[in-house]
């Protein structure tokens, strides 16, 4: 049996677990920061182009953002130190993956319905504006992420920014380019700030 004292054994256990946890958490905030920056920059670009040209078709840039984000995430994960997946990282990954799938799927569905209704002259009785729905989903996913990470600041940031954005989009016209700015605000408060907090926590 090795000459390990009881105190040294307990210290070794605590230090090993702490070191492993820090190593796993080291890069966990980076994807949130990447997607937050992309979301904020894309929202500002769309707002600027939509305002200048009056064409809401610039919203198609969201699809380009998804592709850029997907490629960026792939290279980020590939270049990072390989670490095991924890329950928390697994749940967070699934939450944001399904947010992405649901949002893109919903936008595509709304677009297809609009195209079909226009092509076959079918009257659309309900106009679905996907923006506010995605905004609430983003707020919900941010809040759940905060709960999973046990970070009250993230929960507060998500809930408060979503509430403020809901009030904001309620008081400006639905077809105004300014609507898209809520995604810049949410990108900062739901993705970038929590990502930075997560990075700081892991140091």
């Amino acid at each position, binding site marked *: 049996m090795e000459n390990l004292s009881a105190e040294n054994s307990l210290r070794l256990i605590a230090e090993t677990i702490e070191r492993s946890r820090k190593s796993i958490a080291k890069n966990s905030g980076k994807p949130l920061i990447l997607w937050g920056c992309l979301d904020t920059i894309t929202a500002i670009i769309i707002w600027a182009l939509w305002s200048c040209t009056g064409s809401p078709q610039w919203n198609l840039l969201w699809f380009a953002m998804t592709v850029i984000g997907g490629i960026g995430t792939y290279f980020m994960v590939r270049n990072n130190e390989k670490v095991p997946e*924890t329950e928390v990282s697994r749940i967070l990954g699934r939450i944001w993956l399904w947010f992405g799938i649901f949002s893109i799927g919903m936008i595509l569905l709304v677009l297809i319905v609009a195209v079909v209704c226009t092509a076959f002259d079918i009257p659309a009785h309900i106009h679905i504006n996907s923006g506010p729905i995605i905004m609430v989903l983003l707020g919900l996913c941010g809040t759940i992420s905060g709960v999973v990470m046990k970070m009250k600041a993230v929960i507060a940031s998500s809930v408060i920014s979503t509430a403020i954005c809901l009030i904001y989009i309620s008081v400006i016209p639905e077809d105004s380019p300014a609507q898209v700015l809520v995604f810049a605000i949410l990108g900062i408060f739901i993705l970038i700030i929590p990502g930075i907090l997560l990075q700081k926590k892991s140091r």
Partner: protein
Amino acid sequence: MNDMNFIPLDPLLHSELRLAVMSILLDVPEADFVYLKAQTGATSGNLSVQIDKLQQAGYIEVSKGFKGKMPQTLCQITDKGRDAFAAYVNALRSYIK
């Protein structure tokens, strides 16, 4: 304190490297050999031997496969290993009371 109050320590866990491996595996669903090597700072040969001992005791499960084209050895703590680790920590506490 009387010697009779001391709980015997599990000799399999009372080793620096094996204890470090078990501590890491306790906290994650599974970890690969490369990660364990980086975290413990052990040599590949020594780590292989210690992992083998833990596996033979039924404290961990080892599965070998491939990730892409690279071979990968994944280690996972078993319920028996978890119980043994808890008993070991309880035993340690009896020494420092």
